[in-house]
């Protein structure tokens, strides 16, 4: 903690409400009320506030009995489930620090995260995660216990560090008998400056860094985002329902699930798994919905695929309703998200025809507030959801400022911007670099064990340098241009934001990944990854046979399709920003293979290592790999040989 810069004024130390305190309040007021549900064995099992509180206490006691002291790190490596929250809050209740791991983290990253954080106890969900931990356990001397939540397959393991969840609860009960006042004592000792969690940033450039968030940070963010209606306006109440499905180790989902539940009393539903999210959404029909653009795009693409397969009459009606939706969407966008008599009338026509049913099918019928964050979302997708009556408020924030920066407010939505700064925070845009700076009690306490890197992003006045380039729109709204380090400077000296072009390319339902290349080059090019679902569907309807992802990517028809998308994008940009050539990426990008971060962001550096020959192919004026330029397309010359070349 000595490395930490002077924490920016915590929000009124006396009024501090830690998350465990908030849960305890609920548990005393409405012990029997359902606070979360988990789908298990085919039905949604209720969990009450009293049970939540009970588990928090037991985990807290158990951790202390395992030797965890205040300030020790405890890691959680699991999909979203009630035990994630039990563990997280139990850890915080005894003043230890929660470290969240992505379920998709491969063993090498697990090793790094466990080593870097120095976690002493690890909650591992199931055999898969336990195996990863056991693989790297020898390299992590500080790791003392591995607690598994699912006994299946693990109960036969014979390892001295393994403990089952039931063992932990039993230990907790025993310890509570011996020292019943422990939790209360720790709650009294809790301070605003206590670090409660390390949130590892995704690390598109270097290894992940653990951002330290304190009680004060979390409390401030909870107030701004939840109780003051920062994310969902009007603020969430106990009548609201939400589905938790994005990784909880990310600050956005932590805010959307744990904090929203603790402060708003919202009933959280845990999806069975990421594959069943669509089905679960339909059952739960949440009233609040936060999603990353990728999910919104998938919902949107899903509607398109299903409508393409619909019967003629249904298509006809849908087509008509979409005409209405387009008009509604445009009008709403023009009017900053406010309904006008025209939109209300059109909506009243479209609602019984299609909108109600459509929203029901995708699980958004009861959504009263929806938001999108963590990346840029394409305006086309926003317009579609606006049109069917789901107004999505884009929100901006990052781990280092506890997700508190800007939001689009109801009735003041500007498409293409991330909205206005939250009330009561300082936000400015650096005049020389264009970087967005924030300053408020939610700004983190620094990176874990990385004082140098902390100094890089935090200046002495308490301003956090977000690393995002932004501009003001109409003096009130902020528009994000790009990550500062991703800005491309062409050989001609022109500054270009690749993500704008990439997002425009990705607007097409056929394109999943697009990486624009051109730093120090004469012109821009792009690496394209197709969306297997939609292009597969498209190929099927045109009777184009294909075998693998790569085979499909390299079909001449597909290349022409991509070329068309590139043309459409180029029309929207200035000549220097035009993509002149493209090559197809021969595989789907994947977290396991190190091309994507855990949050599905492209790691540019490793991508250029891996697909360097594709880039050379373009700038060397060769045509060895499938791709094209603005006039022609070409399939690979001898695909067998290239397979090894690219691998």
């Amino acid at each position, binding site marked *: 903690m000595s490395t930490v810069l002077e924490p920016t004024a915590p929000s009124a130390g006396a009024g501090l409400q830690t998350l465990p305190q908030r849960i305890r309040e609920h548990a005393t007021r409405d*012990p*029997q*009320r*359902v606070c979360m*549900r988990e789908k298990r064995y*085919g*039905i*949604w*099992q*209720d*969990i*009450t506030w*009293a*049970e939540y*509180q*009970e588990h928090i206490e037991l985990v807290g006691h158990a951790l202390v009995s395992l030797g965890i002291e205040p300030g020790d790190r405890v890691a959680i490596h699991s999909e979203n489930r009630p035990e994630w929250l039990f563990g997280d809050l139990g850890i915080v209740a005894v003043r230890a620090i929660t470290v969240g791991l992505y379920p998709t983290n491969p063993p090498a990253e697990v090793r790094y995260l466990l080593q870097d954080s120095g976690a002493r106890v690890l909650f591992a969900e199931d055999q898969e995660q336990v195996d990863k931990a056991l693989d790297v356990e020898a390299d992590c001397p500080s790791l003392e216990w591995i607690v598994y939540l699912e006994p299946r397959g693990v109960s036969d393991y014979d390892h001295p560090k393994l403990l089952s969840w039931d063992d932990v609860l039993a230990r907790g*009960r025993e310890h509570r*008998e011996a020292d019943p006042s422990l939790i209360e004592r720790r709650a009294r000792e809790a301070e605003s400056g206590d670090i409660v969690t390390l949130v590892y940033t995704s690390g598109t450039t270097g290894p992940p860094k653990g951002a330290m968030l304190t009680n004060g940070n979390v409390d401030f963010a909870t107030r701004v985002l939840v109780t003051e209606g920062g994310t969902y306006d009007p603020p969430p109440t*106990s*009548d*609201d*329902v939400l589905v938790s499905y994005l990784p909880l180790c990310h600050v956005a989902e932590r805010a959307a699930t744990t904090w929203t539940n603790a402060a708003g009393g919202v*009933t959280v539903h845990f999806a069975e798994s990421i594959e069943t999210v669509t089905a679960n959404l*339909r*059952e*739960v*029909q949440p009233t609040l919905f936060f999603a990353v653009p990728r999910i919104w795009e998938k919902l949107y693409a899903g509607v398109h695929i*299903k*409508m393409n*397969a*619909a*019967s003629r009459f*249904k298509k006809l*009606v*849908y087509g008509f*309703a979409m005409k209405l939706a387009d008009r509604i969407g445009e009008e709403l966008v023009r009017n900053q998200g406010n309904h006008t008599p025209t939109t209300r009338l059109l909506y009243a026509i479209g609602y019984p025809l*299609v909108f109600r*049913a*459509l929203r029901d*099918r995708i699980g958004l*019928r*009861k959504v009263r507030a929806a938001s999108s964050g963590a990346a840029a979302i394409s305006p086309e997708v926003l317009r579609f959801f606006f049109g069917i009556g789901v107004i999505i408020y884009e929100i901006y924030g990052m781990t280092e400022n506890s997700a508190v920066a800007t939001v689009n407010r109801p009735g003041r939505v500007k498409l293409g911007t991330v909205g206005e700064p939250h009330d009561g925070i300082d936000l400015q845009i650096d005049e020389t670099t264009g970087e967005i700076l924030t300053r408020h009690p939610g700004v983190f306490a620094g990176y874990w064990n990385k004082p140098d890197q902390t100094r890089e992003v935090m200046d002495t006045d308490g301003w956090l340098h977000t690393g995002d380039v932004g501009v003001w729109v109409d003096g009130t709204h902020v528009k994000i241009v790009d990550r500062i380090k991703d800005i491309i400077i062409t050989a001609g000296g022109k500054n270009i934001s690749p993500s704008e072009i990439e997002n425009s390319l990705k607007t097409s339902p056929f394109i999943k990944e697009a990486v624009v290349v051109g730093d120090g080059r004469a012109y821009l090019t792009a690496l394209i990854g197709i969306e297997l679902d939609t292009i597969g569907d498209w190929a099927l309807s045109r009777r184009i046979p294909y075998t693998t992802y790569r085979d499909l990517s390299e079909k001449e028809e597909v290349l022409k399709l991509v070329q068309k998308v590139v043309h459409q994008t180029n029309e929207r940009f200035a000549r220097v920003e035009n993509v002149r050539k493209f090559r197809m990426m021969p595989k789907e990008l994947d977290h396991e293979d190190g091309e994507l971060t855990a949050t599905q962001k492209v790691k540019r550096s490793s991508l250029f290592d891996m697909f360097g020959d594709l880039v050379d192919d373009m700038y060397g004026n060769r045509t060895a790999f499938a791709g094209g330029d603005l006039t022609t397309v070409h399939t690979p010359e001898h695909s067998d040989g290239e397979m090894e070349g690219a691998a």
Partner: protein
Amino acid sequence: MTGQPSTTLAPKASRATRRGRPELYTDYRADQAIWNTPAKRFWTAALVLVGLYLPFTLSRDLTGLLTLVFIYAIGGIGLNLVTGYAGQVSLGHAFFLGLGAYTAAFLGGEPSGTVRGLELDLLIWLPMAGIVPAFVGLLVAPLAARVRGLYLAILTLGLVFMGEHLFKEARTFTGGPGVGRAPAEPVVFGYNLYARQTILGVELPRESVFYLFCFALMIGMAILARNLARSRWGRAFAAVRDRDIAAEVMGVPLLRTKTLAFVLSSFFAGIAGALLSVVIGRITPENWNLLLSIDFLAVILIGGIATISGSLIGAAFVVLLPRGVEWASGYVPFIGGAGGSGFISVFQLQGILFGALIVLFIVVEPRGLFGMWLRIRNYWKAWPFSY
């Protein structure tokens, strides 16, 4: 430790977090309920109300016809249990109907001449009309359980012929061929269910009174069957139907399951037979022949295999079709009346239509009318998608 105090309290959730979420099941009871959605609850209640109102407005003739629909539905549900749910094709349904009818007539009918009758109360003869065929079903089941498919169909066909012979010869009970006997008197503690009565201040003809009785009985027996179908035994039926060897491997006792299906089916058939005899008025052994079995097969084929509501729809269709054709014949020129004028007579047309419909359903919609309803429902359920 005295255990966790919190978990002993029942969890409660605010209405706002439950309302309008029909697929959010928080316990198995709701998930498996017969009326598991508000829409189903509403429509069932509405149909029951309409059913209760009809006898107060319809003509005696139509009321009688609808009573027949309910009786056919009870028999159809019985056949659906053994053939639809448990997959055991039975052509012997008519035999069990007859057995029920004669049991009822013997216990509840008047003696006349050589024909015997005990004039007991309905509360005795109606249950017995189910129990006696069920007992016979129990005797037959071990034989029937040994064979399946075509062989079972032939075996049960044998039952019909044996039964017809038996009914013709047992003159003291049945009155013999061509003569027949009077059915049981539907009297409960002196209150005649097949006579003019005053209900709720309205004087009703006997058809309406019996209608109400059959309606209530049909609902009761339909719920019974539906509950059975979603129980452990119902799942065992389906398992045996889908693959008997696999079912046995999973621990479903084949003999016991098939026997239960036969016994229950015979019970339902016996009840239906007893009620049918009351409506027919005078029953002869020729009533219970193969054609009646085929009628019931048509009920479940046209209505829908392995559905209770399908049995009711099928019964309505089979019973009301002849009347519909008769009614339509007045408007179509080439159909002659009963007299024989015109290109084709009403009766011929009824027979042809009946056969054609069975063929059509097997080819086009094997799930029957209920399957058509499912298709319509799914069309709107998936709206605006197609799947």
